[in-house]
């Protein structure tokens, strides 16, 4: 009988080792990007809360946050958002329009859009980072 691996990541190790397919990897990446986005959302709300202190407090927070380093990290944020958004739409389309059969094809179409978006983002963001 199947005995699930123990430990915090046991379930994830099982899914990946027993079913190493596109669906599993995209599911895993969707989980990871989702958790990152929840953590980012908390940080986002925390930083925005500086507006309670008024214009001066808010502006000093923003100037501390708008550095070349954070703008490079922003590329990572764009990648996380883009993957979660595109893969999420793929899941929704598959569920709502009975597209579970071609789900792998749709995944690769989504990934082509992801790569195109990331090339544009890299050109714009890196160009901006080096011009400052």
């Amino acid at each position, binding site marked *: 009988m199947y005995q699930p691996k123990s430990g915090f990541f046991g379930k994830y190790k099982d899914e990946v080792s027993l079913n190493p397919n596109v669906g599993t990897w995209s599911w895993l990446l969707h989980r990871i990007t989702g958790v990152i986005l929840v953590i980012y959302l908390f940080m986002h709300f925390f930083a925005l809360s500086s507006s309670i202190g008024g214009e001066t407090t*808010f502006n000093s927070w923003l100037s501390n946050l708008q550095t070349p380093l954070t703008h490079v990290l922003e590329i990572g944020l764009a990648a996380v958002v883009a993957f979660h958004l595109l893969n999420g739409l793929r899941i929704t389309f598959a569920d709502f329009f009975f597209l579970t059969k071609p789900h792998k094809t749709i995944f690769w179409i989504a990934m082509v859009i992801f790569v195109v978006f990331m090339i544009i983002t890299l050109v714009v963001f890196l160009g901006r980072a080096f011009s400052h």
Partner: protein
Amino acid sequence: MNETPSKISAYGWLLQRITGIFLAFFLIFHFQVLHFTKAWKLDFSVVTQRMNSTGWVIFYLIFVPAGLFHAFNGAWQVIHDYRPKAGTQTAVKTLLWILGIAISVWGYYLIITFTKGA
């Protein structure tokens, strides 16, 4: 296998997709403005100027709870993978709802701080 019965409801599944579609459109717009157009030049006046228009306020009034619902419902699905006991499930669900509503209210309060500035 004596797993705890699933507490993932069909409403949770459906609402995750509905909020997801909303968020996809909203986030593209939000990201375009704040990370492309206005990047490197964000300050209080940039935000308050935008938050002075009714359209943008309505945008954020929907965006905040939709995003938080999606985030906490998603977190619930991750927690659910560990099949916590029925009692724990109820406790975690209650906690997530309280947190989600509280942070939504907090978000609405922050929206007000930006509309007052202009």
